[in-house]
């Protein structure tokens, strides 16, 4: 079943001359994980906002085409209707904190408050999210007294607790330590196995290549590619697309080692083709 359908999506910010999103089309199946990559300013965050309805409902401007999320056409839905189906973790975690809550626990529970859950259900959901992001020990701390990475973990936990059927994450690991980054990606893996559909903007190509089913490459507001990691990172015009392949792929490219028609994109894949040579 298609969980996200984007059709000829166009968007221009009021103050801008150029389109921030220019005829974008792609579809995502239930439980798929999509990585969105591309240069700074290529339109990744704007696309995230369009998936959750902040564009066009909050950001005005010229809007065209369609975004359909879990059967709901975003243009015709309210932001709160959309929020029940699709959750977003913003690029800068500092902007996600509500400022209204005194503890990390309450902050993570915030989105659940109006969902009509029993107290027991609520506690179970919040505890699971806190454990998943490894911030359970800080649950009684003030959100603003967290370190940058702890705050980013809290922002992700708040959305995961709500269990939307689709989750959009805009550079969720930018301030996480290496193990935290790995934990976020494996948590997404776990949640997608339970049916959650994941769209994740990321600059860490090694993780995107390992965990995502498909990669959307954005360039100047356009869809420059939408394909499997192996196909995308095997292209020889990557620098024109404004992206760089994973370290593993670069090494295999330099040594001319492919696996079938494509270059390996993961540690395991690279070790396989390079190891065989020795």
């Amino acid at each position, binding site marked *: 079943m298609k969980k996200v359908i984007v059709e000829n999506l166009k968007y221009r910010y009021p103050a801008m001359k150029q389109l921030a999103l220019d005829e974008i089309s792609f579809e995502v199946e239930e439980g798929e994980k999509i990585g969105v990559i591309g240069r*700074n300013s290529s339109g990744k965050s704007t696309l995230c906002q369009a998936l959750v309805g902040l564009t066009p409902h909050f950001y005005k401007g010229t809007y065209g085409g369609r975004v359909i999320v879990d059967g709901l056409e975003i243009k015709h839905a309210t932001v709160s209707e959309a929020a029940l189906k699709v959750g977003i973790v913003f690029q800068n975690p*500092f902007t996600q904190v509500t400022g209204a809550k005194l503890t990390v626990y309450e902050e993570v529970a915030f989105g659940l408050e109006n969902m009509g859950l029993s107290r027991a259900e609520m506690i179970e959901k919040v505890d699971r999210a806190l454990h998943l992001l490894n911030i359970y020990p800080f649950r009684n701390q003030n959100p603003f*007294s967290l370190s*940058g990475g702890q705050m980013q973990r809290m922002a992700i936990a708040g959305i995961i607790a709500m269990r939307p059927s689709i989750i959009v994450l805009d550079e969720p690991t930018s301030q*996480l*330590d*290496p*193990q935290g980054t790995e934990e976020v990606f494996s948590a997404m893996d776990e949640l997608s196995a339970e049916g959650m559909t994941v769209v994740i903007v990321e600059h860490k190509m*090694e993780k995107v290549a390992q965990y995502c089913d498909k990669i959307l490459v954005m360039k100047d507001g356009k869809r420059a590619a939408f394909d499997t990691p192996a196909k995308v990172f095997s292209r020889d015009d990557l620098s024109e697309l404004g992206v760089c392949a994973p370290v593993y792929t670069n090494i295999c490219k330099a040594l001319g080692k492919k696996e079938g028609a494509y270059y390996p994109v993961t540690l395991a894949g690279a070790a396989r083709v390079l190891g065989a040579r020795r």
Partner: protein
Amino acid sequence: MISVQNLWFSYEPDDRKRPNPDKKYALRDISLEIDKRPTAIIGQNGAGKTTFVRILKGLLTANRGAVTVMGEDVSRTTAARLARNIGLVFQNPNDQLFKKTVMDEAMFGPLNIGMGEGAARKSVMRALDIMELSDKLDTNPHDLALSDKKLLCIASVMAMDTDIIILDEPTISQDYVGREKVKRVIRLLRDEGKSVMTIIHDMDFVAECFERIIVFNEGEKLLDGGAKEVFSDAEMLKKAHLEPPYALQLAISMGLGEVCLTEADVIRCMMEA
């Protein structure tokens, strides 16, 4: 250039003479000397990295221990005097940026430490040029993308021309071009004889750019050494929630004997084999 001795710090009030074992300390008994070697500070989220550099900059005061910057005792000097020697790029740009235009923002620091208007302008233009922001002089910093905000913060600190520059997670939100830009800046500052200390979670970046690596864990200094020493210590890395650089992970899983820190190292090693 910086000397730290038996530094303890807690965010909770702490007035006892000796460290209180029941209390949460963000930093515990840290001692180290910072010289001109480009230095990375790495460690898990909450390890105390940001807290540590805020103390060096005089924004927080140690509970006990001694910190001197260019020979001056931090607890006896003023923030204004410290600002002439030490520049800090904040982890969260929103904590640092407060002026209405990019130009005013970058001018604030240099003027504030007493640089003349002309010299300040020259220094600012050079820094903004290097960060490729000179076409955005009149833009409101808050309208910049997060990646550009971070670059503006770096430019503003560079413009102050201090001997010590601390970067708290400079590569947040940078694409690969921005990441290369940050690398170039670190090399440039090193070549100018400045002491550059960088907090960063990107291990491949660390392996490529820093001579010295200090590992923090749960408020303590776990290890202080060169990239090869740090990244070949698997047990220590695990304890600190860190990983070897991706290139080294590949070298290890292929059983290459050499500690290959970068893409280029692995390629060379494979060609020689």
